[in-house]
Protein backbone atom coordinates (compact mmCIF):
# COMPACT_ATOMS: atom_id res chain seq x y z
CA UNK A 1 0.00 0.00 0.00
CA UNK A 2 1.25 3.43 -0.90
CA UNK A 3 1.08 5.81 2.04
CA UNK A 4 -0.86 9.02 1.35
CA UNK A 5 1.19 12.09 0.48
CA UNK A 6 2.28 14.46 3.26
CA UNK A 7 1.17 17.43 1.23
CA UNK A 8 -0.68 17.81 -2.01
CA UNK A 9 -1.57 20.90 -3.99
CA UNK A 10 -4.27 20.55 -6.63
CA UNK A 11 -4.81 23.38 -9.09
CA UNK A 12 -4.07 25.89 -6.35
CA UNK A 13 -4.41 29.57 -7.22
CA UNK A 14 -3.66 32.66 -5.23
CA UNK A 15 -4.11 36.33 -5.98
CA UNK A 16 -2.98 39.51 -4.28
CA UNK A 17 -5.82 41.67 -5.53
CA UNK A 18 -5.49 41.39 -9.29
CA UNK A 19 -1.95 40.06 -9.16
CA UNK A 20 -1.85 36.32 -9.83
CA UNK A 21 0.83 35.04 -7.43
CA UNK A 22 0.35 31.29 -7.70
CA UNK A 23 -0.95 29.76 -10.92
CA UNK A 24 -2.51 26.30 -11.01
CA UNK A 25 -0.01 24.75 -8.64
CA UNK A 26 0.03 20.95 -8.73
CA UNK A 27 2.48 19.28 -6.41
CA UNK A 28 2.56 16.18 -4.29
CA UNK A 29 5.10 15.69 -1.55
CA UNK A 30 5.50 12.17 -0.21
CA UNK A 31 6.14 11.39 3.45
CA UNK A 32 9.83 11.64 4.19
CA UNK A 33 10.54 13.45 0.93
CA UNK A 34 12.94 16.40 0.77
CA UNK A 35 11.91 19.10 -1.66
CA UNK A 36 13.92 22.17 -2.54
CA UNK A 37 12.05 25.02 -4.16
CA UNK A 38 14.10 27.55 -6.05
CA UNK A 39 13.53 30.30 -8.53
CA UNK A 40 14.01 34.03 -8.99
CA UNK A 41 12.71 36.39 -6.32
CA UNK A 42 9.05 37.21 -6.70
CA UNK A 43 8.35 33.85 -8.28
CA UNK A 44 6.00 32.80 -5.47
CA UNK A 45 8.23 30.24 -3.70
CA UNK A 46 7.74 31.65 -0.23
CA UNK A 47 4.06 32.28 -0.83
CA UNK A 48 3.66 28.66 -1.85
CA UNK A 49 5.09 27.19 1.34
CA UNK A 50 3.37 29.84 3.47
CA UNK A 51 0.04 28.47 2.19
CA UNK A 52 0.85 25.16 3.86
CA UNK A 53 0.46 26.57 7.38
CA UNK A 54 -2.04 29.21 6.39
CA UNK A 55 0.20 32.24 6.72
CA UNK A 56 -1.26 32.91 3.28
CA UNK A 57 -4.72 31.98 2.05
CA UNK A 58 -5.41 30.56 -1.39
CA UNK A 59 -8.42 31.49 -3.49
CA UNK A 60 -9.06 28.32 -5.46
CA UNK A 61 -7.89 24.75 -5.74
CA UNK A 62 -7.21 22.31 -2.94
CA UNK A 63 -4.43 21.91 -0.45
CA UNK A 64 -4.26 18.74 1.61
CA UNK A 65 -1.79 18.52 4.47
CA UNK A 66 -1.38 15.19 6.21
CA UNK A 67 -4.78 13.99 4.95
CA UNK A 68 -6.53 17.10 6.19
CA UNK A 69 -7.91 19.55 3.66
CA UNK A 70 -7.11 23.19 4.36
CA UNK A 71 -10.15 25.44 4.68
CA UNK A 72 -11.27 28.50 6.60
CA UNK A 73 -12.35 26.65 9.72
CA UNK A 74 -10.17 27.72 12.64
CA UNK A 75 -10.10 24.16 14.02
CA UNK A 76 -8.74 22.84 10.71
CA UNK A 77 -6.10 25.53 10.59
CA UNK A 78 -5.08 24.69 14.17
CA UNK A 79 -4.99 20.99 13.39
CA UNK A 80 -2.73 21.53 10.41
CA UNK A 81 -0.46 24.04 12.15
CA UNK A 82 -0.04 21.47 14.87
CA UNK A 83 1.73 19.19 12.39
CA UNK A 84 3.74 21.73 10.47
CA UNK A 85 6.93 23.36 11.72
CA UNK A 86 8.33 26.46 10.09
CA UNK A 87 11.64 28.31 10.04
CA UNK A 88 11.80 31.86 8.79
CA UNK A 89 14.45 33.84 6.99
CA UNK A 90 14.91 36.16 9.94
CA UNK A 91 14.62 33.38 12.57
CA UNK A 92 11.77 35.19 14.36
CA UNK A 93 12.80 34.12 17.84
CA UNK A 94 10.91 35.91 20.57
CA UNK A 95 13.37 38.52 21.82
CA UNK A 96 12.08 38.52 25.40
CA UNK A 97 12.44 34.79 25.92
CA UNK A 98 15.56 32.69 26.33
CA UNK A 99 16.40 30.00 23.79
CA UNK A 100 14.83 27.43 26.11
CA UNK A 101 11.69 29.49 26.74
CA UNK A 102 11.30 30.03 23.00
CA UNK A 103 11.16 26.26 22.64
CA UNK A 104 8.82 25.53 25.54
CA UNK A 105 6.28 28.33 24.99
CA UNK A 106 3.91 26.53 22.66
CA UNK A 107 4.49 23.16 24.35
CA UNK A 108 3.34 24.56 27.67
CA UNK A 109 0.54 26.88 26.56
CA UNK A 110 -0.83 25.37 23.35
CA UNK A 111 -0.16 21.72 23.98
CA UNK A 112 -0.64 21.90 27.76
CA UNK A 113 2.48 19.93 28.48
CA UNK A 114 3.74 20.00 32.09
CA UNK A 115 6.63 22.54 32.22
CA UNK A 116 9.11 19.96 33.43
CA UNK A 117 8.40 17.65 30.53
CA UNK A 118 8.41 20.56 28.06
CA UNK A 119 11.79 21.65 29.32
CA UNK A 120 13.15 18.16 28.96
CA UNK A 121 11.92 17.86 25.40
CA UNK A 122 13.23 21.31 24.50
CA UNK A 123 16.68 20.46 25.85
CA UNK A 124 16.64 17.28 23.79
CA UNK A 125 16.03 19.20 20.57
CA UNK A 126 18.41 22.01 21.52
CA UNK A 127 21.04 19.31 21.92
CA UNK A 128 20.20 17.98 18.48
CA UNK A 129 21.00 21.36 16.94
CA UNK A 130 24.01 21.62 19.28
CA UNK A 131 22.57 24.61 21.13
CA UNK A 132 21.97 23.00 24.53
CA UNK A 133 24.86 25.01 25.95
CA UNK A 134 23.02 28.24 25.11
CA UNK A 135 19.61 27.40 26.56
CA UNK A 136 19.61 30.34 28.97
CA UNK A 137 20.77 32.93 26.43
CA UNK A 138 18.52 35.55 24.90
CA UNK A 139 18.37 35.80 21.10
CA UNK A 140 20.23 39.12 21.18
CA UNK A 141 23.17 37.26 22.75
CA UNK A 142 23.35 34.72 19.91
CA UNK A 143 24.79 34.87 16.40
CA UNK A 144 22.49 34.56 13.40
CA UNK A 145 23.39 30.93 12.82
CA UNK A 146 22.83 30.11 16.47
CA UNK A 147 19.47 31.86 16.43
CA UNK A 148 18.39 29.91 13.37
CA UNK A 149 19.40 26.65 15.01
CA UNK A 150 17.32 27.53 18.06
CA UNK A 151 14.44 28.36 15.71
CA UNK A 152 14.80 24.93 14.12
CA UNK A 153 14.79 23.29 17.56
CA UNK A 154 11.70 25.30 18.47
CA UNK A 155 9.87 23.95 15.43
CA UNK A 156 11.06 20.40 16.07
CA UNK A 157 9.75 20.51 19.64
CA UNK A 158 6.20 20.21 18.40
CA UNK A 159 7.30 17.03 16.57
CA UNK A 160 5.85 18.08 13.24
CA UNK A 161 5.08 15.83 10.30
CA UNK A 162 6.46 18.41 7.90
CA UNK A 163 9.14 21.08 8.25
CA UNK A 164 9.04 24.21 6.13
CA UNK A 165 12.13 26.32 5.61
CA UNK A 166 11.66 29.77 4.13
CA UNK A 167 15.12 30.86 2.96
CA UNK A 168 16.66 29.84 6.29
CA UNK A 169 20.19 30.90 5.37
CA UNK A 170 19.57 34.04 3.33
CA UNK A 171 20.23 36.37 6.25
CA UNK A 172 23.38 34.61 7.43
CA UNK A 173 27.12 35.01 6.96
CA UNK A 174 28.93 32.16 5.14
CA UNK A 175 30.18 30.49 8.30
CA UNK A 176 26.74 30.43 9.88
CA UNK A 177 25.22 29.15 6.64
CA UNK A 178 27.12 25.88 6.84
CA UNK A 179 26.27 25.29 10.50
CA UNK A 180 22.56 25.70 9.72
CA UNK A 181 22.75 23.56 6.57
CA UNK A 182 24.50 20.82 8.54
CA UNK A 183 21.61 20.74 11.01
CA UNK A 184 19.14 20.60 8.14
CA UNK A 185 21.03 17.78 6.47
CA UNK A 186 20.96 15.83 9.76
CA UNK A 187 17.21 16.31 9.85
CA UNK A 188 16.92 14.98 6.32
CA UNK A 189 18.87 11.88 7.27
CA UNK A 190 16.42 11.38 10.14
CA UNK A 191 13.58 11.04 7.61
CA UNK A 192 11.78 14.35 8.19
CA UNK A 193 9.52 15.54 5.39
CA UNK A 194 11.08 18.86 4.39
CA UNK A 195 10.22 21.63 2.00
CA UNK A 196 12.97 24.22 1.69
CA UNK A 197 12.93 27.44 -0.21
CA UNK A 198 16.60 28.13 -0.64
CA UNK A 199 19.28 29.35 -3.00
CA UNK A 200 21.84 26.94 -1.59
CA UNK A 201 22.34 24.79 -4.64
CA UNK A 202 25.00 22.67 -2.98
CA UNK A 203 22.48 21.75 -0.29
CA UNK A 204 19.83 21.04 -2.92
CA UNK A 205 22.18 18.73 -4.77
CA UNK A 206 23.21 16.84 -1.68
CA UNK A 207 19.95 16.57 0.21
CA UNK A 208 16.95 17.07 -2.06
CA UNK A 209 14.94 14.23 -3.55
CA UNK A 210 13.39 16.62 -6.03
CA UNK A 211 13.97 20.22 -7.02
CA UNK A 212 11.01 22.40 -7.89
CA UNK A 213 11.79 25.39 -10.06
CA UNK A 214 9.29 28.24 -10.02
CA UNK A 215 9.02 31.38 -12.09
CA UNK A 216 6.28 34.01 -12.20
CA UNK A 217 3.94 32.02 -9.99
CA UNK A 218 4.18 28.78 -11.92
CA UNK A 219 5.99 25.53 -11.37
CA UNK A 220 8.20 25.40 -14.44
CA UNK A 221 10.04 22.20 -13.75
CA UNK A 222 10.21 19.41 -11.22
CA UNK A 223 13.21 17.12 -11.46
CA UNK A 224 15.66 15.16 -9.39
CA UNK A 225 18.67 17.33 -8.53
CA UNK A 226 21.09 15.54 -10.84
CA UNK A 227 18.88 16.10 -13.88
CA UNK A 228 17.95 19.60 -12.83
CA UNK A 229 21.51 20.79 -12.41
CA UNK A 230 23.09 19.01 -15.36
CA UNK A 231 20.38 19.11 -17.99
CA UNK A 232 17.41 21.28 -17.07
CA UNK A 233 14.59 20.71 -19.50
CA UNK A 234 13.36 24.31 -19.65
CA UNK A 235 15.04 27.36 -21.02
CA UNK A 236 13.96 29.41 -17.98
CA UNK A 237 15.51 27.02 -15.47
CA UNK A 238 18.69 26.86 -17.53
CA UNK A 239 18.91 30.64 -17.54
CA UNK A 240 18.36 30.74 -13.75
CA UNK A 241 21.06 28.16 -13.14
CA UNK A 242 23.42 30.06 -15.40
CA UNK A 243 22.93 33.21 -13.33
CA UNK A 244 23.47 31.44 -10.04
CA UNK A 245 26.62 29.69 -11.22
CA UNK A 246 28.04 32.90 -12.62
CA UNK A 247 28.16 34.42 -9.16
Amino acid at each position, binding site marked *: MVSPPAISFEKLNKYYGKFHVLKDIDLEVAKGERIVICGPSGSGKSTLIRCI*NRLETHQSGRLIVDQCEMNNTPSTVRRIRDRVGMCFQHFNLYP*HLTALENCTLSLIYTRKMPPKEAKQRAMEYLARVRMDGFAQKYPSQLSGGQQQRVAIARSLCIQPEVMLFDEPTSALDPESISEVLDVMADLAIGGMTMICVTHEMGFARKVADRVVFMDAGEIVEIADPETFFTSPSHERSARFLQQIINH
Partner: protein
Amino acid sequence: MFDLYLDYIDRWSHGLWLTASMSTLSVLIGFLVALPIGFVRSRAKGPLAWLAIAYVNLFRGMPLLVLMFLVYYGFGQFSSELRAMGLWWFFRDAYFCGMLALILNTSAYQAEIIRGSLNTISTSVIETNAALNLTRWTAFRRVLLPIAFAKALPPLGNEYILMVKATSLLAIITVFDLMGEARTIFSETLDLGVYYVAAIHYLVLVLAIEWTLRRVEARFKWMA
Protein backbone atom coordinates in the same frame (compact mmCIF):
# COMPACT_ATOMS: atom_id res chain seq x y z
CA MET B 1 14.61 77.98 54.55
CA PHE B 2 15.97 75.06 56.51
CA ASP B 3 13.76 76.12 59.41
CA LEU B 4 10.76 76.09 57.14
CA TYR B 5 11.50 72.47 56.52
CA LEU B 6 12.43 71.38 60.05
CA ASP B 7 9.65 73.28 61.82
CA TYR B 8 7.02 71.65 59.66
CA ILE B 9 8.69 68.33 59.00
CA ASP B 10 5.58 66.32 59.88
CA ARG B 11 3.48 68.19 57.37
CA TRP B 12 6.10 67.96 54.66
CA SER B 13 6.42 64.23 55.21
CA HIS B 14 2.68 63.82 55.06
CA GLY B 15 2.49 65.85 51.85
CA LEU B 16 5.35 63.92 50.30
CA TRP B 17 3.67 60.66 51.20
CA LEU B 18 0.36 61.73 49.68
CA THR B 19 1.97 63.01 46.50
CA ALA B 20 4.11 59.90 46.06
CA SER B 21 1.36 57.42 46.89
CA MET B 22 -1.41 59.13 44.93
CA SER B 23 0.67 59.55 41.79
CA THR B 24 2.02 56.00 41.98
CA LEU B 25 -1.37 54.47 42.68
CA SER B 26 -3.12 56.44 39.96
CA VAL B 27 -0.44 55.54 37.40
CA LEU B 28 -0.68 51.83 38.32
CA ILE B 29 -4.48 51.72 38.32
CA GLY B 30 -4.46 53.90 35.21
CA PHE B 31 -2.22 51.33 33.52
CA LEU B 32 -4.68 48.54 34.23
CA VAL B 33 -7.51 50.67 32.82
CA ALA B 34 -5.41 51.71 29.82
CA LEU B 35 -4.40 48.15 28.91
CA PRO B 36 -7.73 47.00 27.42
CA ILE B 37 -8.39 50.45 25.93
CA GLY B 38 -4.98 50.54 24.25
CA PHE B 39 -5.45 47.00 23.01
CA VAL B 40 -8.84 47.82 21.52
CA ARG B 41 -7.39 51.00 19.97
CA SER B 42 -4.63 48.98 18.37
CA ARG B 43 -6.51 45.90 17.21
CA ALA B 44 -10.29 46.30 17.13
CA LYS B 45 -12.68 47.93 14.67
CA GLY B 46 -16.32 48.95 15.06
CA PRO B 47 -18.29 50.14 18.09
CA LEU B 48 -15.75 48.98 20.66
CA ALA B 49 -13.02 50.94 18.88
CA TRP B 50 -15.24 54.04 18.71
CA LEU B 51 -15.87 53.77 22.43
CA ALA B 52 -12.14 53.59 23.08
CA ILE B 53 -11.47 56.62 20.86
CA ALA B 54 -14.24 58.54 22.63
CA TYR B 55 -12.72 57.73 26.02
CA VAL B 56 -9.24 58.80 25.00
CA ASN B 57 -10.40 61.99 23.32
CA LEU B 58 -12.69 62.97 26.18
CA PHE B 59 -10.12 62.64 28.96
CA ARG B 60 -7.14 63.77 26.96
CA GLY B 61 -9.08 66.75 25.66
CA MET B 62 -9.90 68.09 29.10
CA PRO B 63 -7.49 69.88 31.44
CA LEU B 64 -6.85 67.82 34.54
CA LEU B 65 -7.93 70.71 36.75
CA VAL B 66 -11.28 70.96 34.97
CA LEU B 67 -11.73 67.22 35.34
CA MET B 68 -11.03 67.46 39.08
CA PHE B 69 -13.58 70.25 39.45
CA LEU B 70 -16.17 68.28 37.50
CA VAL B 71 -15.68 65.18 39.62
CA TYR B 72 -15.42 66.90 43.01
CA TYR B 73 -17.76 69.90 42.70
CA GLY B 74 -19.80 68.71 39.72
CA PHE B 75 -20.86 65.43 41.25
CA GLY B 76 -21.47 67.24 44.52
CA GLN B 77 -24.54 68.81 42.89
CA PHE B 78 -26.13 65.38 42.81
CA SER B 79 -25.41 64.56 46.42
CA SER B 80 -28.91 63.35 47.18
CA GLU B 81 -28.97 61.02 44.17
CA LEU B 82 -25.49 59.78 45.00
CA ARG B 83 -26.55 59.18 48.59
CA ALA B 84 -29.50 57.15 47.31
CA MET B 85 -27.12 55.07 45.19
CA GLY B 86 -24.80 54.57 48.13
CA LEU B 87 -21.91 56.35 46.38
CA TRP B 88 -21.79 59.52 48.40
CA TRP B 89 -18.97 58.34 50.65
CA PHE B 90 -16.82 58.29 47.53
CA PHE B 91 -17.77 61.58 45.92
CA ARG B 92 -17.79 63.68 49.08
CA ASP B 93 -14.13 62.87 49.66
CA ALA B 94 -11.61 65.08 47.89
CA TYR B 95 -9.03 62.31 48.06
CA PHE B 96 -11.19 59.80 46.18
CA CYS B 97 -12.39 62.39 43.67
CA GLY B 98 -8.82 63.47 43.04
CA MET B 99 -7.74 59.88 42.52
CA LEU B 100 -10.58 59.28 40.08
CA ALA B 101 -9.69 62.37 38.04
CA LEU B 102 -6.00 61.40 37.98
CA ILE B 103 -6.83 57.86 36.87
CA LEU B 104 -9.18 59.01 34.10
CA ASN B 105 -6.56 61.44 32.85
CA THR B 106 -3.51 59.19 32.95
CA SER B 107 -5.34 56.13 31.59
CA ALA B 108 -6.22 58.09 28.44
CA TYR B 109 -2.57 58.99 27.87
CA GLN B 110 -1.30 55.52 28.78
CA ALA B 111 -3.83 53.90 26.43
CA GLU B 112 -2.26 55.84 23.58
CA ILE B 113 1.23 54.80 24.67
CA ILE B 114 0.15 51.15 24.77
CA ARG B 115 -1.58 51.44 21.40
CA GLY B 116 1.58 52.88 19.89
CA SER B 117 3.85 50.18 21.25
CA LEU B 118 1.45 47.40 20.21
CA ASN B 119 1.39 48.88 16.72
CA THR B 120 5.16 48.76 16.40
CA ILE B 121 5.23 44.99 16.96
CA SER B 122 6.25 43.60 13.60
CA THR B 123 4.06 41.29 11.54
CA SER B 124 6.79 38.64 11.74
CA VAL B 125 5.99 38.25 15.45
CA ILE B 126 2.30 37.80 14.64
CA GLU B 127 3.20 35.22 11.97
CA THR B 128 5.40 33.34 14.40
CA ASN B 129 2.53 33.21 16.87
CA ALA B 130 0.39 31.70 14.12
CA ALA B 131 3.03 29.23 12.98
CA LEU B 132 3.55 28.07 16.57
CA ASN B 133 -0.20 27.72 16.95
CA LEU B 134 -0.40 29.94 20.02
CA THR B 135 -3.90 30.70 21.23
CA ARG B 136 -5.00 34.32 21.12
CA TRP B 137 -4.69 34.63 24.86
CA THR B 138 -1.22 33.06 25.03
CA ALA B 139 -0.05 35.23 22.15
CA PHE B 140 -1.29 38.33 23.95
CA ARG B 141 -0.21 37.43 27.46
CA ARG B 142 3.14 35.79 26.72
CA VAL B 143 4.32 37.57 23.59
CA LEU B 144 2.58 40.81 22.62
CA LEU B 145 2.18 42.18 26.14
CA PRO B 146 5.78 41.69 27.32
CA ILE B 147 7.24 43.05 24.08
CA ALA B 148 4.86 46.00 24.04
CA PHE B 149 5.51 46.71 27.71
CA ALA B 150 9.26 46.82 27.20
CA LYS B 151 8.82 49.21 24.29
CA ALA B 152 6.37 51.34 26.25
CA LEU B 153 8.54 51.59 29.34
CA PRO B 154 10.35 54.86 28.52
CA PRO B 155 7.18 56.80 27.57
CA LEU B 156 5.32 55.25 30.53
CA GLY B 157 8.09 56.47 32.82
CA ASN B 158 7.71 59.89 31.30
CA GLU B 159 3.98 59.79 32.00
CA TYR B 160 4.66 58.76 35.61
CA ILE B 161 6.91 61.77 36.13
CA LEU B 162 4.34 64.08 34.55
CA MET B 163 1.72 62.67 36.90
CA VAL B 164 3.84 63.32 39.99
CA LYS B 165 3.83 66.98 39.13
CA ALA B 166 0.22 67.03 37.97
CA THR B 167 -0.87 65.89 41.43
CA SER B 168 -0.04 69.39 42.70
CA LEU B 169 -3.42 70.43 41.26
CA LEU B 170 -5.02 68.31 43.99
CA ALA B 171 -4.24 71.12 46.43
CA ILE B 172 -6.93 73.20 44.74
CA ILE B 173 -9.62 70.65 45.58
CA THR B 174 -8.44 70.65 49.23
CA VAL B 175 -6.19 67.59 49.24
CA PHE B 176 -3.15 68.03 51.50
CA ASP B 177 -0.53 66.75 49.11
CA LEU B 178 2.89 68.44 48.95
CA MET B 179 1.42 71.53 47.33
CA GLY B 180 -1.56 71.54 49.72
CA GLU B 181 0.74 71.41 52.72
CA ALA B 182 2.93 74.11 51.21
CA ARG B 183 -0.06 76.39 50.83
CA THR B 184 -1.10 76.03 54.46
CA ILE B 185 2.44 76.50 55.72
CA PHE B 186 2.67 79.62 53.57
CA SER B 187 -0.58 80.96 54.95
CA GLU B 188 0.89 80.63 58.44
CA THR B 189 4.39 81.93 57.74
CA LEU B 190 3.84 84.20 54.71
CA ASP B 191 7.35 83.16 53.67
CA LEU B 192 7.73 82.47 49.95
CA GLY B 193 10.65 80.19 50.78
CA VAL B 194 7.99 77.55 51.45
CA TYR B 195 7.64 77.02 47.74
CA TYR B 196 11.36 76.41 47.35
CA VAL B 197 11.07 73.64 49.90
CA ALA B 198 8.11 72.24 47.95
CA ALA B 199 10.05 72.45 44.69
CA ILE B 200 13.00 70.57 46.19
CA HIS B 201 10.65 67.86 47.42
CA TYR B 202 9.25 67.40 43.92
CA LEU B 203 12.72 67.39 42.43
CA VAL B 204 14.00 64.73 44.81
CA LEU B 205 10.90 62.62 44.26
CA VAL B 206 11.26 62.80 40.48
CA LEU B 207 14.98 61.97 40.68
CA ALA B 208 14.20 58.95 42.82
CA ILE B 209 11.61 57.75 40.31
CA GLU B 210 13.98 58.38 37.44
CA TRP B 211 16.66 56.29 39.16
CA THR B 212 14.19 53.46 39.74
CA LEU B 213 12.97 53.54 36.15
CA ARG B 214 16.50 53.30 34.86
CA ARG B 215 17.06 50.18 36.94
CA VAL B 216 13.82 48.65 35.72
CA GLU B 217 14.72 49.41 32.10
CA ALA B 218 18.11 47.79 32.59
CA ARG B 219 16.34 44.55 33.43
CA PHE B 220 15.07 44.41 29.88
CA LYS B 221 18.53 43.57 28.61
CA TRP B 222 17.09 41.41 25.84
CA MET B 223 15.90 44.58 24.08
CA ALA B 224 18.81 44.77 21.70
